[in-house]
């Protein structure tokens, strides 16, 4: 036992030096070569910078809305609702979101609402929507912005992010980018 | 042929005795040794308490009748398990009793040296008074009072009391057939026997103790299995204890009877109840094969044997080699040659020697006596060094022996070894015969051919052993060429030719160093070290006391192929335990599906989706599961006693087969069984 304590302490110290020191510093060095020096991807609009991958809260009728967030879009305290699929309170919440959505988006079919629009994301910062999730919001935005629905549809289609290599994963749009382009299209 | 081989599993007398024992074994002090059944007994006691409690006015535990039925079924479960053990013991005991009869006091004619002339005096004492090294006399019609070794005389003996074999056997002093067993009967002649065991330690005593379970110790595999089963029992204790707060959370109240039923159904009662019966039955099967194992461990080890050493003579070939032909060398008169052969064999007491004389007679050669008999005649005994024997008289020296031994003899005397004789020797050897070269005054006169007769069916038996993964090794004193021929013809994997006793020993050591388990059979005193060294040493009952002491099994039939049966018995023993364990655990799947939905029918009705058997009601479901759990024990008693059939089809195929029968079968059968019982039970509740 005793013979092991000192070597253990010394070995731990060297491991600290190596894995807490050298390894992260090496990564930090490599990060300087990466876009934005490893501080997360940014998009710029009107001289303002936004984190491309972090969802923002959009409540205005003239913007595409992001998915609900269980943490109020707080990117310093990520999290989901952690509600179970059979929880009656949770189901009431979802029903409430559907009703609200129907009120703000008159004239759409309930069955056109994809579930991600009324369910909270895992991180509370999901920056994406499915294509259907964007499309279903077009009538409301068109009305708010006085635009042709067809132009908006084109805009959404232009912004579709295909699955990886067209083969793997989901098809989606980035809500922030969509809204930035929306603003450039129509002030 | 063999005694009681075909006896029925459930003879009324045995059943009656076992029935009585099942109740005696309810004593917790006895049952404590079997942890699984002991916990069931505790559960039974608790249920009895619950019944009393209800009678005293408790009303949250369900009806008295229902609880009482559960109590009765649990009690039956324990009784069934006890019965399984008791019937196995009773069967053993029945054997022991028949043996014990032969042990009853018999008069012994003790020989005592008396007077100054050391004249022997015979006094008749009770056999129980005989001490080790006493010498007694037995004449025709006497029962031999004690195990011993013949020191003088020869006799035919009826050993049917021990072996069930009615044909009498010959026992004589000296050599490897000098041992006699107490309880057997002398049919002819007169022998002096020295007692070789202490009172109470004879083979009969040991055998009786063994089958009665007095000296039954758990074998290593049995201990390991008991640990495994205890582990399973602990898992289900955890499951049942934690179910209480789980149920509280689900706002369900579960009566005590349901907890206990669930617990008893889940713990491996089937194998737990049959485990000791399987062990006893294994010993019993060995005994039925007329093999006395000195411990259960020996039987179990037999199932693991990798290498089997078998003496050629008597095992692979029928009896001994026999002389079949005389081949005189060129220019030697055949008749003279045969006479020389007879002369050389006169003092040769081996079966081969005798067969030479017999063959000579059949060829019309009359008894011959050397010239000047009684004067300068010297018989030369066979020794391992000279590897030849013969006779010296007057100026004549006749020798017969192995090819190279005689060749050396001739060469040393400056004589050539004729080529045609060498050719003859080669031909005989390569045909599986044994050539004995005969010389007169160091000149080759001819060759005697000895032939072995291989037993019919032995090839198939070795094939079977090979499929079991056992390597067979033939041990023979023959030269390598002959040995090879017979080995190939009989289908053994390897052979030790020109074997000296230490060769056997070395071979065993070598195999053991490579991690193999070795079994061998032997009878002679010079086999004793090898028997002791082997992992399983089977001594023949006819063998010397030293051999019997050294081995860990004794074969009463003196049948050298018995090892094959012993191996199968060992394997059967393990397999029966393994398959019933699998069966027992697999049964739990169905029991869960019967009981869990029943427990939560009122509080979580959706769990009825798990009631895939569509059982009638919660009560009938629980009752059916408990009843199934109880009656499966007696239903499996025949299997436990007879053992699962061993088929030499290779380990993987055997596993697949047993997994299918006892694993998958173990999952499906209770689904069917519980459903059927439920159909019946539903008529009453």
């Amino acid at each position, binding site marked *: 036992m005793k013979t092991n304590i000192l070597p253990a302490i010394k070995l731990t110290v060297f491991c600290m030096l190596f894995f807490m020191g050298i390894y992260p510093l*090496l990564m930090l060095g490599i990060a300087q070569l990466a876009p934005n020096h*490893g501080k997360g*991807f940014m998009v710029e609009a009107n001289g303002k910078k936004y984190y491309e991958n972090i969802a923002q809260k959009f409540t205005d009728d003239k*913007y595409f809305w992001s998915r609900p967030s269980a943490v109020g879009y707080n990117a310093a305290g990520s999290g989901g609702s952690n509600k*179970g699929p059979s929880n009656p309170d949770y189901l009431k919440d979802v029903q409430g979101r559907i009703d609200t959505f129907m009120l703000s988006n008159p004239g759409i079919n309930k069955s056109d609402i994809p579930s991600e629009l009324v369910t909270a994301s895992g991180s509370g910062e999901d920056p994406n929507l499915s294509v259907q999730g964007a499309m279903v919001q077009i009538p409301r935005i068109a009305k708010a912005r006085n635009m042709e629905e067809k132009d908006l549809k084109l805009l959404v289609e232009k912004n579709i992010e295909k699955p990886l290599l*067209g083969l*793997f*994963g989901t098809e989606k749009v980035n809500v922030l980018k969509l809204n930035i382009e929306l603003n450039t299209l129509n002030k | 042929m063999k005694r009681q081989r075909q006896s029925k599993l459930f003879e009324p007398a045995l059943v009656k005795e076992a029935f009585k024992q099942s109740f005696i074994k309810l004593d917790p002090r006895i049952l404590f040794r079997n942890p699984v059944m002991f916990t069931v007994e505790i559960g039974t006691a608790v249920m009895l308490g619950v019944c009393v409690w209800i009678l005293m006015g408790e009303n949250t535990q369900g009806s008295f009748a229902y609880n009482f039925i559960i109590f009765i079924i649990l009690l039956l479960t324990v009784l069934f398990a006890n019965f399984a053990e008791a019937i196995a013991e009773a069967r053993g005991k029945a054997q022991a009793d028949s043996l014990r009869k032969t042990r009853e006091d018999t008069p012994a004619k003790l020989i005592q040296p008396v007077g100054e002339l050391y004249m022997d005096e015979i006094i008749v004492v009770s056999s129980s008074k005989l001490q080790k090294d006493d010498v007694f006399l037995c004449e025709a019609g006497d029962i031999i009072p004690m195990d011993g070794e013949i020191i003088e005389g020869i006799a035919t003996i009826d050993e049917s009391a021990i072996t069930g074999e009615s044909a009498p056997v010959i026992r004589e002093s000296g050599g490897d057939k000098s041992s006699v067993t107490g309880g057997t009967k002398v049919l002819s002649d007169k022998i002096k026997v020295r007692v070789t065991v202490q009172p109470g330690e004879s083979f009969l005593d040991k055998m009786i103790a063994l089958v009665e379970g007095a000296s039954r110790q758990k074998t290593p595999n049995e201990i390991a299995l008991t640990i495994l089963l205890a582990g399973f029992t*602990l898992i289900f204790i955890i499951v049942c204890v934690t179910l209480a707060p789980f149920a509280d959370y689900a706002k369900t109240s579960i009566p005590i009877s349901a907890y206990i039923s669930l617990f008893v159904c889940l713990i491996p009662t089937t194998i737990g109840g049959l485990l000791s019966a399987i062990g006893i039955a294994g010993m019993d099967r060995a005994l039925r094969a007329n093999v006395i194992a000195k411990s259960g461990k020996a039987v179990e080890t037999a199932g693991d044997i990798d290498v089997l050493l078998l003496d050629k003579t008597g095992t692979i070939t029928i009896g001994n080699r026999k002389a079949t032909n005389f081949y005189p060398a060129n220019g030697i008169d055949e008749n003279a040659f045969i006479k020389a052969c007879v002369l050389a064999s006169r003092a040769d007491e081996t079966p081969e020697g005798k067969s030479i004389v017999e063959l000579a007679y059949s060829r019309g050669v009359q008894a011959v006596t050397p010239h000047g008999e009684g004067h300068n005649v010297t018989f030369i005994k066979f020794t391992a060094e000279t590897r030849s024997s013969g006779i010296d008289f007057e100026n004549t020296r006749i020798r017969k022996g192995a090819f190279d031994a005689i060749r050396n003899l001739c060469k040393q005397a400056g004589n050539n070894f004729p080529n045609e004789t060498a050719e003859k020797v080669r031909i005989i050897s390569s045909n599986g015969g044994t050539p004995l070269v005969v010389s007169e005054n160091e000149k080759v006169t001819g060759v005697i051919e000895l032939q072995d007769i291989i037993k019919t069916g032995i090839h198939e038996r070795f094939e079977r052993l090979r499929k079991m993964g056992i390597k067979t090794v033939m041990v023979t004193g023959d030269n390598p060429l002959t040995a090879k021929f017979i080995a190939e013809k009989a289908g053994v994997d390897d052979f030790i030719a020109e074997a000296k006793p230490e060769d056997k020993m070395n071979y065993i050591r070598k195999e053991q160093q490579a991690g193999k388990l070795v079994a061998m059979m032997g009878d002679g005193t010079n086999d004793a070290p090898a028997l002791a060294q082997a992992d399983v040493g089977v001594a023949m009952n006819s063998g010397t006391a030293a051999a019997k002491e050294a081995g860990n099994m004794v074969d009463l039939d003196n049948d050298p192929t018995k090892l094959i049966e012993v191996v199968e018995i060992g394997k059967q023993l393990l397999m029966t335990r393994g398959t019933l364990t699998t069966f027992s655990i697999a049964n739990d799947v169905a029991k869960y599906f019967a009981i869990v939905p029943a427990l939560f029918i009122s509080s979580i009705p*959706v769990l009825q989706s798990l009631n895939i058997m569509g059982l009638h009601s919660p009560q009938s479901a629980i009752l059916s599961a408990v009843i199934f759990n109880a009656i499966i024990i007696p239903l499996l008693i025949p299997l436990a006693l007879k053992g699962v059939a061993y088929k030499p089809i290779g380990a993987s195929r055997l596993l697949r087969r047993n997994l299918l029968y006892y694993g998958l079968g173990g999952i499906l059968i209770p689904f069917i069984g519980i459903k059927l019982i439920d159909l019946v039970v539903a008529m009453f509740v």
Partner: protein
Amino acid sequence: MNTEITGIIFIFLTTLVLSYPLGKYIAKIFSGDKTLLDPVFNPLEKIFFRLSGIDASKEMTWKQSLVALLVINAVWFLLSMFVLMCQGWLPLNPDGNPSMTADCAFNTTISFVSNTNLQHYSGESGTTYLSQLLLMLFQFISAGTGIAACAIVFNALRERTADKLGNFYNYFLKSCTRILLPLSIVVAVILIFRGSPMTFDGKDTTISMQGDTLNVSTGPAAAMIAIKQLGTNGGGYFGANSAVPFENPDYLTNIVENASIFLIPAALVFALGFYLRRKKLAWMIFGVMTVCSLILIAPTVYYEMKGNPAIEKMGISQPLGNMEGKEVRFGPAASALWEITTTNTSNGSVNSMHDSSMPISGMNAMLGMMINAIYGGVGVGFLNFFIFIIIAVFISGLMVGRTPEFLGKKIEAREVKIAMIIFLIHPLLIMTGTALASGLAAIDAPMGWWYAGNATGWLNNPGHHGFSEMLYEYTSSSANNGSGFEGLGDGNPFWNITCGIVMLLSRFLPIVGPVAIAGLLAQKKYIPESSGTLKTDTGTFGMMVFAIIAVLVGLSFFTALALGPLAEHFTLFAK
């Protein structure tokens, strides 16, 4: 074909294919053969060992190895307790986060030392950068400990009789430097270039398009994410783990991270085959593991993509499936695959919230942890599988009428005893833990110091799902997994302490047990195979192991699973 499905097939297959060459490489490291990285690491390790006063060439017995393992882990425990309880005033704390309470530090320390990475704190606010770096250190060295223990067992299973089974420190350091570090660098670089932060700047505050203030946590995340996945640690940099866009920015990183989760555990199986020159045995083990994982993955993917019937009834559409707690960029299929692989392997990182997945998915995730050997945690996964093998060998040996042998060594009472005890620990800890918590919740007991409020307060969901939350927490702790039904209010003394104890016992006993069995076997006489020996590298024996796993785990946990996820499932899908 649906691109979600092709995506997960691609992830699954690519990982398994990659694990083969990696296994070969690991086997070389264990046997001390030459590898590509020798010129870099040979001198480095030499310096490490010389300065630490360790003679890495001196072989140890299994007992000496275990003592060395336990002592160094004790050192780490003390180090971590100190740093976490003092992090408030230690350097690298740009956001001014406070020190941890004793019970939280206890839980976190055990959690990271035991390779569990259960996080009863939130990464963004509960720790400082120094603590995060320290926890990252543990992600290396706790994984290295597991791999080293595995290497000792491999060594013991070789065809010979031996006392000395290699040097623990040697295996440990080489596992960290030559297996975990190079792979971490590769993964971290990919993450950095796909948008994961790697910076020591503090929290960033931005203004959103609509004018709201938006706080964004960053930090040296990429370096930690790489090792958390590769070392089956799972402790994320951010609270919501790999669901957070910074931690797992897109589908490509999701492929890389998900592959990293079970790459080394699968590779270790092949490493066994190469190291012992028993490739067929490796394929048997690999086959059983893969079949088990497919059995758990398929229904999970099905139910997640099918969606929630309760939401179906509301009249909206679920084109993707059950999206509560999931990210659009991954979709339900990739979330389901991750959910199962992360629980199979004792990783515990998440890219969706397991609490919100369908009951069958939750059950399968728990089953993965209850088995805890489907690839399993780095090193320890094989150790757990080894226990199942020992039990299977014993029973099947009896079934073919021969004293059981594994790799030429007899399995006897002592080995069976240890194997049974180690197997028992898992159900014991999970079931009694859940019994304690659910019993308290049943009577809604006031908890005093242990928890502010009554016991049901820690449930985020009522009924069967609430039961599942408690069951999941102890299952995750006992499997050293670290994922959670995160709705559970676990940041309090009751959960910190009980889960801490569970993690501690379930980490070290299942290392000690298999190493002891292997050590005992190594000392036994080697028996060469004969045709009567039951071959353990066949499909038949694979079936046997599978049956043993299925039946043992099923029987142990059936009641709990019936009352939690199964009851919820039947309720949800009732007609």
